[in-house]
């Protein structure tokens, strides 16, 4: 589904990704771990098309197509979804309107008919249940005045509504208490399908108790320095990142 080859990217003059290689197949869950500043959030954002980064080398194929050549909205329309580490507040735009606009834009791009507000509301009922929310949240402005936990939950609600093929979760666990973590992880797990894939970017092993990865990759200084199975995450939890960083240096 996703084939990243020697990907390099910078923010301004600073090179952050220095040759990433990663292949993700349908049905797989990959965890990308690493210390602060290792480039793991940059990787997530570059895959979604964040305008703050320049790709300086390498390639990314998504379902056989050049992902880096697509505008951010085209990536989304083709099934790529990034759950933001810091979701953006949009005062004045209600969550319900936002979700329906996004959903209909994606349907339109696929040549499907748009859903009217009533049909959309029906559809929302089950999606809201998934994150244990009620309709009230649809009348609130997007992320405006939301707690940290609510913002992350709202990302998962969007994930549920848009049903992407490739979900990239960027530090979705940071700042969550245990209840919120359970809800967020539960939502992600119930949305998993054999034809979809998930990349979980995280600093801590804790989330991986809930969302169990097939593969774990450790990033350091813009490169993957070690890959392994889920047991690697436990090893990192016990030993920290230093031994890998030393090995990479």
């Amino acid at each position, binding site marked *: 589904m996703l084939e990243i080859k020697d990907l390099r990217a910078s923010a301004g003059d600073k090179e952050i990704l220095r040759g990433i290689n990663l292949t993700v197949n349908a049905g797989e869950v990959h965890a990308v771990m690493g210390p602060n500043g290792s480039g793991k959030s940059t990787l997530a954002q570059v895959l*979604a*098309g*964040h*305008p*703050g980064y320049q790709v300086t080398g390498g390639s990314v194929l998504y379902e056989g197509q050049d992902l880096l050549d697509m*505008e*951010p*909205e085209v*990536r*989304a*329309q083709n099934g790529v*979804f*990034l759950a*933001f580490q810091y*979701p*953006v507040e*949009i*005062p*004045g*735009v209600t969550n319900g*309107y*936002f979700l*329906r*606009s*996004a959903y209909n*834009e*994606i349907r339109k*791009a696929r040549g499907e008919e748009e859903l009217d*507000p009533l049909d959309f509301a029906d559809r929302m009922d089950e999606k809201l249940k998934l994150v244990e929310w009620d309709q009230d949240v649809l009348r609130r*402005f997007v992320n405006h005045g939301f707690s940290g936990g609510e913002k992350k939950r709202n990302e998962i609600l*969007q994930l549920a509504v*848009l049903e992407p093929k490739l979900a990239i979760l960027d530090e979705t666990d940071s700042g969550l208490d245990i209840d919120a973590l359970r809800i967020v992880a539960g939502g992600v797990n119930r949305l998993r399908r054999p034809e979809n894939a998930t990349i979980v970017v995280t600093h801590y092993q804790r989330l991986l108790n809930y969302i169990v990865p097939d593969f774990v990759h450790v990033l350091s200084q813009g490169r993957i320095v070690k890959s392994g199975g889920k047991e690697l995450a436990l090893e990192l939890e016990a030993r920290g990142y230093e031994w890998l960083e030393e090995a990479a240096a």
Partner: protein
Amino acid sequence: MTATFLEELETTIPVRADNEPEWLVALRRNAWDRFNKAGLPTTRNEDWRFTSVAPITQATFARASVLAKRTITPELIDGLRLPGTTELVFVNGYLVPALSDIKGAGLTVTSLAQTLRRQGTDLPRMLGQIAGFSQNGFTALNTALFTEGTVIRVRSGQRAPKPLHLVYISLPGAQPTVSYPRVLVVAEQSSEVTVIETYSGPPEEQYFTNAVTEISVGDNAAVEHIRIQRESERAFHVATVEARQGRDSRFRSFSLAMGGALARANIYSIMDGSGSDCSMNGLYLLHGTQHVDHQTRIEHAQPNCTSREIYKGVLDGTSHGVFNGKVFVRAVAQKTDGKQTNNNLLLSDGAKVDTKPQLEIFADDVKCTHGATVGRLDDLAVFYLESRGIRKSLARKLLTNGFAAEVLGTIPHEEIRQRLERLVFHRLDFPVA
């Protein structure tokens, strides 16, 4: 050669309406003298620093002294009406009874002439006194020359069940016209009323509206005032709304400005009784070469009063927006709580804003803040929406619209708020579902 507006005025003598009482004749004469001495403001006047009225003084206008022979087409009026209100329609400043209906309004609306005949012992304390003309040439001119004034009175303890909507339509004839709408709202003690004023005219036509609205908010009374400025984009518009608030009163003002080639709104309130509350909010949406200026002044003249102010601007093309808001706290006005914000969104490189929020505080035990921003759409917010599959063009509209909608949300009447939202969305070319 045709005389310009100012040259024309120099030869005009204010018409003394029949049967006007001495105090009103004296008021008009004073206003006329004031105007003749000081004229209209120039940009050397600090209050008009960013707005030159030269285009008005150099233009030519006929007095809109008679009802134009043109008929009002449904297109002109239908789109201006507001649901759930009682409405009065004025053409060139003259009431058109056939288009007006205030049954069940729960208040009395009379022409000034009628009021003077029947009652009006308190009028000399209010008319021309709430909106002073010593500092404002346009108000002086209106006071000297207005023809048909409207007096709206809500009796003590009464609540007007529906908002009253005054619709002002300018219909110039063969040449541009000038009209002088004049309104006095008297909300007696413990009464409640909403007054909405809409200004409009045929698109592409040139005229000048010079309006004055005075509002007396009695003790414990509540007045909501909404002005909707939808003048033609070739029109000139200068208006003053001035309120005087009694003890424990509430005054809420909203100003929506979308029209006019050159427009200026002065919105002032003085809280002259303790325990009062004032809110002033507004939204200006400009494009093309429009120039729209808001000057607000909230005066805390007594202790324990609260004021809240949010003005927002969305500017495109090479338009120019001006916001000059003053919160003035007198020495006696301890325990004042004031907050003022002005946020502007520039959609183009050519658009420009001058914003000048001001606090003048002479009391020492107060809580006041103010702030202003001028910025563009947030790239990260655009990306956030794009990352959900929303096209860049729609993402920009959604954010622009959200920016505007937030301040419209302060209008409490749901039906009216929704109508104004639709109006704004339409103007911003936003798809409404």
